[in-house]
């Protein structure tokens, strides 16, 4: 019995090592998207809850986020809903692809609507999931975007096309406004 005890001890220790290795495997995979989002958010430091309007991507101006679509104009809102509900509004182009999409803190897309679903003008209220903010009372449900995480990203895509060349789209792009409503 005395001889078996050290073997059992070593076996348990080996099992603990395996559990640690497997746990860190999943931890690394789980944490990576959050790390990526925080790195991108760092680039927008000072621009939280404020829209940023990108130029049409090219080989010179688009070296941070991989796989930019050169046919799009992008706008972003790096958001933090800790103290605010955001009112986001603007104009939707009528004959070219447009979409508003929302990404939670691990960069996963949880909301998207395009120009086929939203006509001419849009107005959304971005709030934390479960928010009981007074400012959301009387706001129709379809206008509220509930974010699963406090921080995240709103991304607008505007397709540059024959019907909507860059100059015209840029006007719409810069027409997006964000109002911070106190919770």
């Amino acid at each position: 019995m005395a001889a078996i005890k050290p073997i059992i001890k070593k076996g348990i220790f080996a099992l603990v090592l395996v559990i640690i290795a497997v746990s860190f495997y999943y931890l690394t995979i789980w944490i990576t998207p959050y790390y990526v989002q925080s790195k991108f958010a760092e680039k927008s430091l000072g621009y939280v809850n404020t829209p940023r309007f990108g130029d049409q991507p090219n080989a010179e101006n688009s070296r941070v986020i991989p796989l930019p679509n050169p046919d799009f104009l992008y706008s972003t809102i790096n958001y933090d809903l800790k103290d605010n509900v955001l009112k986001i509004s603007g104009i939707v182009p009528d004959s070219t692809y447009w979409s508003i999409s929302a990404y939670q803190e691990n960069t996963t897309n949880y909301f998207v609507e395009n120009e086929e679903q939203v006509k001419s003008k849009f107005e959304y209220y971005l709030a934390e999931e479960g928010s009981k903010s007074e400012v959301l009372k009387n706001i129709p449900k379809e206008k509220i975007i509930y974010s699963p995480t406090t921080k995240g990203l709103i991304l607008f895509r505007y397709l540059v096309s024959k019907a909507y060349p860059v100059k015209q789209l840029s006007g719409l792009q810069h027409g997006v406004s964000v109002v911070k409503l106190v919770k």
Partner: protein
Amino acid sequence: MALNQKIKKIAVGLGLVLLAILIGSGAGIYSIKSGKSDSQRIIGNWQTVDKDKDLSTADLLTIAQIAVYRPYALTKKEVIYLSTNTDSDGNALDPKSDYVISGKKLDAKYWSITAYDENGFLIKNPINKYSYNLENVKYQADSTSYKINLSGTEKKENWLPTNNIKKTGLIIRLYLPSEKLRENLTIEELPSIQKVK
């Protein structure tokens, strides 16, 4: 047990724990870099998300891979992304070689084919051309089919340049694809890539 032996035993134990952490984290990074996951679907030389899965419900590994290599992608309801870094024979795309991408109009509100460098960025080139889409690709006489020249040297039409890069990758984007295309996304529907030089 002598004190020295105890310290030695604790040090070895801590060393093994550290090793387990490094192995676990290293395996995680390797898996992300491998680009392979359970949510993947292969169609010829093109890769996409599996028919029955989506980015919002994908496994942790797929979410991590997308966050690193294709951040802020949309779900399949909105867009289907297809990627490749090989020709139709399965050989890696060589930026110094010439390829012809032959395909037909795709049944989507908007589709495009874009070339990227080894880091996933747009390729600097003399004509500032990075992609072709349903509107700006020059179609053949049948107004349906097209041939795009993927090459480092200038071509007369539909030239998709691959100048001064180490590796090339291609992405097809299908925005708001028809239900028919969504259900029958086969190799016959997708463009072929043939090496010509």
